[in-house]
């Protein structure tokens, strides 16, 4: 009997928890509700985007329904359809990939709810949506091109290595393609690149990078498909005596894509040569502005493609453009927060 009582207590407790959680919705008439559906928050880029979007929206007195799809396109599809059934006023989505984005846009169009797609473009322009994109391939290529330029000054044949992201994620494929485009442009400079799988997992990266460097210790040019892997690169290079800033003879030419705060810090310290930056704040603001405007003006299937030009932040252009890098701004904000 005692156990049964414990059980009922638990039930009651959980129900209170549930209802308590639900009661947090403060219904205000006329308040705009936006569903923000994202695929997952595994790298700092997505975290920062998530933070920027939710905070800005809430600051504008907009109710935000957050949905994490855990990297499952179908789950995202279901989440957004549920949101549509709930009569949200607008949708912002970070899709799993361009193909599923297209399908989901179709659903939103049918329901007449404006939808904004953040960062990953739909596979084609057949269905109207607000889209803000950065060209992953181009940004990666630019960053690697600068790295190649830095490497050519060393006057030796380089052994390049690329940390490839999850093969099920199209961003990693585009970034890899950008890397190859830049490397293949300089056949005289590079030997055959070494590919190291990361599965977007830090532990896998560490193990595989360590193994690769064991077999080919002469690697002196590393490109990471995402900046979030720098701590692991450091963990491998440091014991080998290769974690050295620019100018040191043992320096490994290093670069990546994203533009997070770690990358900024490492660039400032001279360890990283270049990083492909997407302008996160620009993207976030552009998509939110466009969506809120569409909602307020009653548009049901607004269409607009906003291009985030993106750029490669390099050791050269750092002084001028550092503040365009979101990671740098976040770092400054944090520092000023701490100072306060």
């Amino acid at each position, binding site marked *: 009997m005692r*156990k*049964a009582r414990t*059980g009922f207590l*638990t*039930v009651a407790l*959980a*129900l209170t*928890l*549930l*209802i308590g*959680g*639900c*009661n*947090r*919705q403060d219904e205000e008439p006329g308040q705009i509700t936006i569903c923000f559906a*994202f695929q997952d*928050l595994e790298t700092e880029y997505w975290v920062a985007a*998530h933070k920027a979007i939710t905070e800005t929206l809430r600051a504008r007195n907009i*109710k*935000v*329904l*957050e*949905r*994490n799809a*855990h*990297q*499952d*396109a*179908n*789950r995202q*599809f*279901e*989440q957004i*359809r*549920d*949101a*549509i*059934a*709930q*009569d949200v006023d607008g949708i912002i989505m970070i899709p*799993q*990939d*361009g*193909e*599923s984005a*297209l*399908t989901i846009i*179709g659903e939103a169009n049918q329901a007449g709810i404006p939808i904004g797609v953040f960062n990953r473009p739909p*596979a084609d322009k057949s269905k109207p949506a607000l889209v803000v994109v950065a060209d992953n391939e181009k940004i990666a290529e630019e960053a690697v091109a600068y790295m190649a330029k830095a490497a050519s000054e060393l006057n030796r044949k380089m052994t390049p290595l690329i940390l490839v992201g999850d*093969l*099920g*994620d*199209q961003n*990693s*494929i585009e970034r890899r393609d950008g890397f190859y485009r830049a490397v293949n442009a300089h056949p005289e400079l590079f030997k055959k690149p070494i590919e190291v799988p990361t599965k977007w997992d830090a532990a896998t990266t560490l193990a595989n990078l360590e193994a690769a460097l064991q077999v080919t210790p002469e690697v002196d040019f590393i490109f990471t498909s995402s900046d979030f892997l720098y701590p692991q690169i450091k963990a491998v290079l440091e014991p080998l005596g290769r974690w050295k800033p620019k100018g040191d003879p043992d320096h490994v030419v290093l670069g990546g894509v994203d533009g997070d705060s770690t990358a900024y810090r490492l660039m400032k310290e001279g360890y990283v040569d270049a990083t492909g930056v997407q302008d996160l704040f620009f993207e976030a603001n552009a998509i939110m502005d466009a969506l809120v405007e569409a909602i307020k003006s009653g548009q049901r299937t607004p269409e607009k493609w906003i291009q985030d030009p993106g750029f490669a932040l390099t050791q050269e252009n750092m002084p001028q453009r550092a503040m365009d890098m979101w990671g740098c701004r976040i770092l400054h904000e944090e520092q000023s927060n701490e100072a306060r």
Partner: protein
Amino acid sequence: MKLDNTLLRWPKAVVLSNHFILVLTVLFFLVMWGIYPHMAGRRNLANLLSNTWPLLALVLGQMFVLIVGGIDLSQTSIMAVTSVLGAMVMATSLEPTRFAHNPLWGVLISEQGGWLSGSPWAVPVAVLSFVVAGASIGLLNGLAVAKLRMPPFMVTLVTMSFFSGLAIYLTQSENVRPLPDSFIAIGKGTLGPISPPMLIVVVLALLAFVVLDRSILGRWFYAVGQNAETAKISGVPTKRVIVLAYAFSGLCAAVGAILYSARLEAGRPTLGRNLLLDVIGAAVIGGISLFGGKGKVLWAVYGVLFFVVLDNSLNKMPLDFYSIDIIKGAVILLAALLDALRTRLSLYHAPLAGAP
């Protein structure tokens, strides 16, 4: 104790009945309805139902494997592989820039799309290849378990990573689209109140019901799961039964893949990546035993409904993304706890051993 017998008879009957999880789900739904009036709206109900069908297809297949005392972790990777293969049969066009370095470029697929692109046979053959591929992978699992006597957990864990790797390899990470409209209609079209997924999965469920509850084969599934040695001595072809269970699980995964691919309008190498635990979770919450020998089609339906309603209601809540995970876990735990209490209660009320 006296009170128990009079006042609590009705609740006890509910708790002890086979339909407990359904009651739980309905109660949960009603509570949520009170908070979110549009829970019972037409569109939301339509969503609920359409989310139910593909998951139910998977859980039905999983149930057969669980009944014979195994487990099939490879269902989601079967979905991915079949989705990719099927799409490669019927895709209407493919961009060379994305597919030119594909191992099957020029063999199965080309600029004009898949193998049967444009042919009226494309969709039927594609659907067939979904089903055949799914069932054959299941067959392989079954053979490894039954003939080579390998532990099911490891066999399907390994095939899970093999076939999800194969799906990605076959497409070199690309999603295969566009697919013919007639295929997409399977996922989205409606015939009055009946949608094709509903039709397909209800037929599948009926088939499963007839097999399990009415046929010799069904009795053999239970017998093998309850006691393989007794079953063998009693003339049950145990190995064939086990192989069939896995093949059926693969077939159901393929049906799930058809429905998911059709609604997402592409052949996806990452289809259903994180779905596995939902499938097994729904089966177990429904009351299908992980130790074999126990399971009913109706239980699978209840388990799936529970999960779908849970997900749907969590999607309504204006919560932080992490709180949703916490609550989801808590609700699963709670349902399991109620079920455990119920089991104990039913033991207490079991017919007396050897009573005259």
